């Protein structure tokens, strides 16, 4: 227990902040994922073959390639890409990108591919009559989307989005390879300096279990809220 003490003698406070970091990265990645889904879901549903192809390649590639490989691409490639852009503007110094941004972006792109599939499925499973009814009632495009389609989409998408959240939360453990101090990295440091890997990795597992458990409870409430009337 003294290993978990707060302050200089134990690892309690370090692990606490690491847990907050994991939550922060997961939420940021999830939001980035939503932004990607916002762009790619319409492309997937579009009738244009070329736009379809772009969206399909995005989801297929990301879902078929290991997360770790994507993270390495961003970790090693991100700095190079930013420096290349900067060199066009005449800035040739070394630029280091924040590990948080790289990690959240890499996980966000992965999470976005899953979210896109979820939203596509949800929108496609909405009855055609709903679209037609909205047209008949004279809703304009925005009204139709925000008042009629989106609320129904959310109800259908939330159970699957909770799966995406779980995947995203667990994927953040992979960012530890880039040196961002989240739960996994902190446990690695603590295990190395105390030579007690069994304890610290088991504790990390318990922290992840706690996070998934609590978030499931919260999502279940959301699910109830959005399925009022059904």
């Amino acid at each position: 227990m003294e290993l978990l003490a707060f302050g200089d003698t134990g690892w309690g406070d370090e692990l606490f902040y690491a847990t907050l970091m994991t939550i922060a990265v997961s939420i940021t990645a999830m939001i980035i994922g939503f932004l990607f889904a916002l762009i790619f879901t319409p492309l997937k549903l579009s009738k244009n073959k070329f736009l379809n192809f772009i969206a399909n390649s995005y989801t297929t590639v990301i879902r078929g390639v290991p997360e770790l490989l994507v993270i390495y691409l961003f970790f090693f490639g991100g700095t190079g890409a930013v420096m290349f852009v900067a060199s066009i503007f005449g800035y040739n110094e070394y630029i280091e990108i924040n590990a948080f941004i790289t990690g959240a972006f890499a996980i966000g792109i992965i999470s976005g591919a899953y979210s896109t599939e979820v939203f596509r499925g949800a929108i496609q499973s909405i009855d055609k009559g709903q679209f037609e009814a909205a047209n008949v009632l004279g809703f304009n495009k925005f009204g139709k989307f925000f008042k009629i389609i989106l609320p129904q989409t959310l109800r259908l998408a939330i159970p699957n989005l909770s799966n995406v959240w779980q995947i995203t939360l667990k994927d953040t453990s992979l960012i530890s390879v880039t040196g961002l101090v989240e739960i996994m990295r902190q446990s690695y440091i603590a295990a190395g300096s105390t030579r007690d890997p069994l304890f610290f990795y088991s504790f990390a597992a318990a922290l992840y279990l706690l996070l998934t458990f609590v978030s499931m409870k919260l999502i279940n409430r959301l699910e109830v809220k959005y399925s009022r009337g059904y």
Partner: protein
Amino acid sequence: MDLELMINSFPKLLSAAVITLKLLSVSLIIGLLIGLFFAILRLNKNIFINRFAYGYSYVFRGTPLLVQIFIIYFGLGQIEYLRSTVLWVILKEPYWCAIIAFALNTGAYTSEILRSAFQTIKPGIIEAGKSLGISNKVIFYKIQIPIAIRQSLPAYGNEIILMMKGTSLASTVTIMDLTGVAKYIISTTFKPIEVFIVAGGIYLFMTFIIHNVIKFLEKKYSFN
């Protein structure tokens, strides 16, 4: 684009893909047995056995695979007693530690897939078997299991692909699988995009093959 690097690294990455496939196939076979075992426990009416099986799948599905590998590879070596047993021959090898972690992980997911497949079998089918005078054992092996396998094929296909991506974590415990070799080439040449295209292409090709094999099996075993 450095085409020369892409061509040169292709054979290296291809031979590393063989290790990835080995890791995948061995852990899938062990994982399937574990999954079947725990799925049967989940169907048991005894509440303790039931809870135990649920707890297993909950813990392994609720924690990242990376933690599981690290507990088995770094953690178990810490127990002095284990070092003196025969088990140590297996546990000191990173290759077997990775396989144990993968098998336990995929076993947890497989048990959930099989459980839901068993539960969706219509009671009428089992009753029909009973009224024909078939013994419970034969009903289980000849009727329930084949139907459950057919039911669970699509979900299990996804699990195989997820597991193939999961084997990339073996590179964190010094195994030179496809991701491990890719990372090595990236860190020595600093050309991440080229290596990503080749390694990612090999992964995508394997995904494509698995996807089509599962589709073929689904068609072959479909009810119509």
